[in-house]
């Protein structure tokens, strides 16, 4: 989904046929899940009016300082898959004289998004020492369910994880 915008010297190791395809498939595997997560994260920011594809890509580009550059057409099949899976709902609306399809998170989509974000955050934290990066999770703001890694805001008065049902009362700080 994400476009590779890197170019290398012809004699560089990863320009060789063998390593180039290896690196490309590694990157695309890694980015497949992240692309979904990133798209959902942007959509989550527009709970009322929703967001249309082009706007989503623009925001993503700005947020990631153009590190994640999407091959734009590939976003739409992903949005449609998320819609079919019940994570998103869409609505066609006119905006600036042009019809656009606005996407919003469903209630289930919101829950799953929190779970996916929680999982990815905990995963990053766990592998941080291996890749020599320091990941600090905002644990003052959120509780990460020890059972399913769901990300739950500390401010909400929740007794049970809304994904796996674990009692998380004692975990709030």
């Amino acid at each position, binding site marked *: 989904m994400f476009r590779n915008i890197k170019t290398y010297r012809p004699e560089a190791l990863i320009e060789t046929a063998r390593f180039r395809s290896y690196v490309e498939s590694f990157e695309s595997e890694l980015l497949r899940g992240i692309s979904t997560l990133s798209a959902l994260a942007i959509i989550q920011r527009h709970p009322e009016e929703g967001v249309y594809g082009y706007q989503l890509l623009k925001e993503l580009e700005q947020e990631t300082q153009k590190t994640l550059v999407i091959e734009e057409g*590939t976003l739409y099949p992903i949005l449609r898959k998320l819609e079919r899976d019940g994570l998103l709902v869409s609505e066609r609306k006119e905006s600036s004289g042009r019809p656009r399809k606005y996407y919003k998170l469903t209630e289930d989509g919101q829950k799953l998004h929190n779970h996916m974000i929680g999982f990815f955050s905990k995963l990053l934290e766990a592998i941080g020492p291996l890749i020599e990066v320091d990941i600090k999770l905002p644990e003052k703001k959120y509780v990460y369910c020890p059972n399913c890694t769901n990300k739950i805001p500390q401010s909400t008065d929740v007794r049970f994880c809304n994904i796996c049902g674990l009692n998380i009362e004692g975990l709030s700080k």
Partner: protein
Amino acid sequence: MNYQNESKELIEAFKEEVKKKVPIWLKTQVTELKDFLDELEDHIWDKATEYANGRDPEITHVREAIISMGSPRKITKEFKTRGNPKFFITEELWPSYYKSLIFGAVIVLFINMLTMGFDLAKPEANIGATIGQAFEGTFAGFAYVFVGMTLMFVQLSYHGYLPEDFRKMAEAREKKELLKKEARRVGKTVRPERTKKPKREKSVIPSSGSYLFEGIMAFIGGGVLVFYPFIDINRVYIEYWMPALPGWLKLVGGVMLISGVIRFSQALIGKNRRLQQFFLALGIIPMCLSLALWLQVHFNPDLVTNVLSSRFPATNIPQIILAIVVVLSILQIFGMIDEIRKIVKLEIKGFEKKESKYEKLMNNH
């Protein structure tokens, strides 16, 4: 042509190219496909307007915007990642696969048992041999169903089909039927929406899909002729009047099976030029055998000529059979020539990528 029209044409060509490459399940969902293509178009106009700094985009801006969309192949590839792979067939399709296997197996069992019933009813029936034959036919049928269904479901999984797509297709068909009925009731005729299809250039060899289809057909046809489950119904008649026919039918079936194996292999190979050429050449062998078998119909009167001549003495049966054999033999020879033509064409052109209208337009601007 002004810029606006040129831009529209370019976008339409891009959409057409995407449409061509979407998996079959999406093609069947007309509204969803149209909505998806419209969404792509909206995006292109947004992007082109951005490139034009908010002014009306020119053709170059539209072209840049289309490039930023990614290739139609890559866009549609995302649709093919549906389903969780599980031994070549997606997890979602496994229940339908099981059901189809069972359904196929039941039909095979039914045919074989029916044949066995007819056979056992005859006074001279050899019970042991008949039962043995029926089981042999049943297991061979199971094997055919298994191979055919598996290949079909592997192909469906590859295209990202999900069970709900079958349901949607059925619903769409029902809706269409209802509309037709309604129109008939009010005395109007409903004509399907006609869209102007761009003329498609023929590729050097048929697609993997059509080879797979040919393979399955050859397997089914060949299997029926080799194991000929209905022979016991009219065995006495055939053995008396046309004693050479069962053997001849088995040979035809065998040749069809060989062709089926070759077609399957061609479907699996895909765009490997050398292997395709090898199998195209190999395909000539069963064609030669078929030719020999057609000629046999003329040269061996025991096959059908004698029996037909005795039944219809007033007609010149040998002449009619000769005419049929000549026509079929000519067709067979043309088939062989066509295979040779494909080998040569592959050598000269390879799997030449035909420039689509979209690519032509993109390259021109």
